[in-house]
C-alpha cells in the first residue's frame, strides 16, 4: 500500500482523533474552566447583590495597581522561561522561572498590604457585603496564586534536575498556561472591581 494512497483516503474518512491534545493538558483546561465558573459565580453574585441597594462604596487599594503590573511582568518572564526551555536554553529558563516565582510572591505580599490599606480605609471582611465580597474574591484568587506558586516551585525543581527540555515540555506548558490564566483572571477581577464599586 503506497503512502500517498493513505493520505489521500484519510481526507475522506479520517479515522484519527479529531481533537488530539495531550490528556493532561486538556484536563488542565477543564480545570481552568471550572475555576473560571467559580469566579463568574462570585462576580455575578456581586452584581445581583449590588443591584439590591444598601451597598457601601469603597476605594480600591492603590497597591492593587502595582500588583497588577507585577502580575503582568511575571507573565512575561514566565513566557520567556518557557521559550528558553523550548530552545533547550536551561540556564536562562531557570533564571526566568525564579524571577516569575519571586514576582508571584511579590504579588501575594502586595495583595496582603492592599488588604491593610483597605482596613485603614475602614473596609472590613465583616460588615457591609461590598467589603466582604472584595476580601473573598481577592482572597480566593490569592489562594489560586498560592497553588500556582507551588506548581512553579515544582517546575523550578524539575528544571534544576534537568527534567525539562525541548522534548519534555508538557508540564512546563501546563504551568505556563495556568500562570497566564491566573494573571488574566486577576486583570478581569481588577477591572471588574474598578467598574462596579
Amino acid at each position, binding site marked *: 500500500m503506497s503512502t500517498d494512497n493513505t493520505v489521500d483516503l484519510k481526507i475522506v474518512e479520517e479515522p484519527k482523533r479529531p481533537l488530539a491534545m495531550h490528556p493532561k493538558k486538556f484536563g488542565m483546561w*477543564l*480545570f481552568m474552566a471550572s475555576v473560571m*465558573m467559580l469566579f463568574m459565580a462570585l462576580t455575578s453574585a456581586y452584581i445581583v447583590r449590588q443591584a*439590591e441597594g444598601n451597598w457601601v462604596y469603597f476605594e480600591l487599594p492603590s497597591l492593587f495597581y502595582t500588583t497588577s503590573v507585577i502580575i503582568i511582568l511575571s507573565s512575561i518572564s514566565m513566557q520567556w522561561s518557557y521559550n528558553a526551555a523550548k530552545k533547550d536554553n536551561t540556564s536562562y529558563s531557570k533564571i526566568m522561572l525564579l524571577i516569575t516565582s519571586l514576582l508571584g510572591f511579590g504579588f501575594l505580599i502586595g495583595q496582603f498590604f492592599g488588604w491593610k490599606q483597605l482596613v485603614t480605609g475602614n473596609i472590613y471582611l*465583616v460588615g457591609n*457585603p461590598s467589603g*466582604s465580597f472584595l476580601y473573598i474574591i481577592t482572597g480566593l484568587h490569592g489562594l489560586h496564586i498560592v497553588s500556582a506558586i507551588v506548581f512553579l516551585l515544582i517546575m523550578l525543581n524539575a528544571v534544576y534536575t534537568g527534567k525539562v527540555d525541548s522534548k519534555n515540555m508538557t508540564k512546563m506548558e501546563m504551568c505556563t498556561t495556568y500562570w497566564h490564566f491566573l494573571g488574566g483572571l486577576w486583570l478581569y477581577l481588577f477591572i471588574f472591581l474598578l467598574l462596579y464599586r
Partner: protein
Amino acid sequence: MAHDTHTHDEGHGHEHHGNFWTTYIFSEDHKVIAKQFLITGMAWALLGGILSVIFRLQLGFPDANLSWLKPILGGWLTAEGKIDPEFYLALVTMHGTIMVFFVLTAGLSGTFSNFLIPLQVGARDMASGFMNMLSYWFFFISSCFMFTSLFISTGPAAGGWVIYPPLSALPQAISGSGLGMTLWLISMALFIVSSLLGSINYITTVINLRTVGMSFSKLPLTIWAFFLTAIIGILSFPVLFAAALLLIFDRSFGTSFYLSDIYIGGEALPNQGGSPILFQHLFWFLGHPEVYIVLLPALGITSEIIATNSRKPIFGYKAMVGSILFIAILSFVVWAHHMFVTGMNPFLGSIFTLLTLIIAVPSAVKIFNYVTTIWRGNLRFTPGMLFSLGLVSFFLTGGITGIFLGNSAVDIQLHDTYFVVAHFHLVMGSASFFGMLAGIYHWFPKMFGRMMNEKLGSIHFWITFIGVYMVFFPMHYIGIAGFPRRYYTWTNFETFSGFADLNFVVSVAAIVTLGAQFIFLFNFFYSMFRGRIASANPWQSNTLEWTTPRNPGHGNWPGEIPTVYRWPYDYSKPGAKEDFIPQNIPFSETPESNLPHENELIKLEGVEGNAIVVEEKKH
C-alpha cells in the same frame, strides 16, 4: 504520531500484579473504581430509603406510637413515642441530600461513566487513573462526614436539601444548623472536588482516548449523555461551591452575604445588608443543571438498553444527541423557575416561564424517539429493558407536571406543595433511579461475569413500578389541595384531615416499595457469586464493551483495541445474517447488508487496517 504513542501506551498490557490493597482498595482501574462507586451508592440508597420510610411513618400514621423504634432513634423520639419535629426536618433534609447527590450523582455517574466510558470508546483506562482514584476517595471521605453528621447530638442539617439561609445560617434557628450544617458543608465541598475530578477525567477520556474509527457520530448515546453530563458538572458545581463558601463565611466568620434584619427571640442580629434571595440564585444555578446531571446519564443508559432489547436501531440518533445537547444548554437558563414566589419582577417571571417551557420540546423528542424505537420492535423483556421502559413512563408523567409548574402564575399556587414533590420524584427521583437499576441489570454480566436472575428482576420491577406510582400519584392531589411540603404534621389543620386515608396509602406503598428493594439486593449479591455464568456478549449487543472477555482484566482488551467501523445501532439490519452487527465488524465482512454508501467505505477499511499496522511497527 507523538501524542498517539503517548496516549496509547498508558496501561498497554502491563498487568497489575498488585496485592489486595492495590487491586481492590486503592485501585486505579476504572472498572474497580466503578464498582466502588456502585457499592457505596447502593449503601447510601438503602440508608436514604430507610430515612424516607421513617418520615412516611409520621405522615401516614400520625397517631401511632413509635417507641419500638427507640433502639434505633433513641432521643429523637419524644416521650409519647412521636418523632421529634426537628428530627423530622433533619430526616427530610438528609433523605434529599443523600438521594440527589450521593446516590443519583455519585452513585449513577460515578458507576456508569467510570465503567462504560473506557469500555465503550475503546480505551485501556481513564485519562488519569490516579485522579480517578482520588475522585472516589474524595467521595468516600465526603460520605464519612455526611454519615457522621447523622449521629451527633444536635442532629444533622435540617434546612432542606436546598439549605436556604437564614435557616441554615443560624444555629439559633434550628439545632440542625449547628455542627450538623457545618459537617454538611464540609462534606459537600469534598463532594464537589470529587465530582470535578471525575468530570474532568470523563471529558478528557471521551475526547482524547477514543479508539481508531470512533468518531463522534459513532459514539453510543450512553457516552454522549455521560460526556454532556460531565460538562454540565464542570460548569455548575463551582457555582454551588461559591454559594457554599459564602454561606460558610456567614456562619463562621460573621459576614452578611445572606443575612439582614433578623430578630431572634426579640433580639436583633448584627448582620445587615445581606440577601437570602442571592443564595437561591446561586443555589439554583447549580440546582437546575444538577437535576439534569442526575437524569441525563439515566437517559443515555435507557437509549442503549431500549435499542438493544428492541432489536432495532435507535430512532433518530442525531435528534437524540441534539436534544441532549439542547437540554444541557437550556438547563443553565431556567433556574429562576424555582424562585417564582421570591417576589421577582413578573416580567422576568414570564421570561423564565418561556425558557422553562422550551425544555419540554427536547424532552418530548426523546420520549417520542424511545417510543418509535420500541414500536414494532422485537422486544425482549429483560429486567434492564423493563426498568428502561419504566423510566420512559416516569419521565413522561413527571415531565407533564413540569409544564404546569413552569407557568409562573400556576406555580404561585403549587409552589412548595406536594405537587412539586410528586413532580420531581417521578421525573428525577424515580426515573433516574430506574435508569440506574436498568444499568445495573444490563451491565452486571460485564461487571461480575455472571447473570442476575431474570425472574427476581421482573418481580422487583413490577412491585417497584406499581409502588412508585402508588406513592407519588396521590401526592398530586394532596398538592393541588394546597398541602405544603416539609410539614411535620397536618392533623392540626381541619382542611387537610380529609387526606389521612391518602397519606396512609402512600406510606404503606412506600414501605412495600422499600421492601421490594431487598429482592434486588439479594439478587445482586447472590448472583455475584452464584449467578449463571455469563457469555461475553449475553444481550447480543453492538457496543465495544461486549468485545472484551467475560472478565476483562486491567487494560480491558487482552490484545489490540478493536477498531470501529460502524455506528452502534446496527440491529436487525435488512439482509444481515444475524440481528446485530457489532461496531468492530468491517463493512467488507457484511456485503449482504451494506447500504450503497457503506460499500464505498469498504475501500477505506483496508487502508485503515494497513495504516494501523504501520503505526504499530513504529513503536
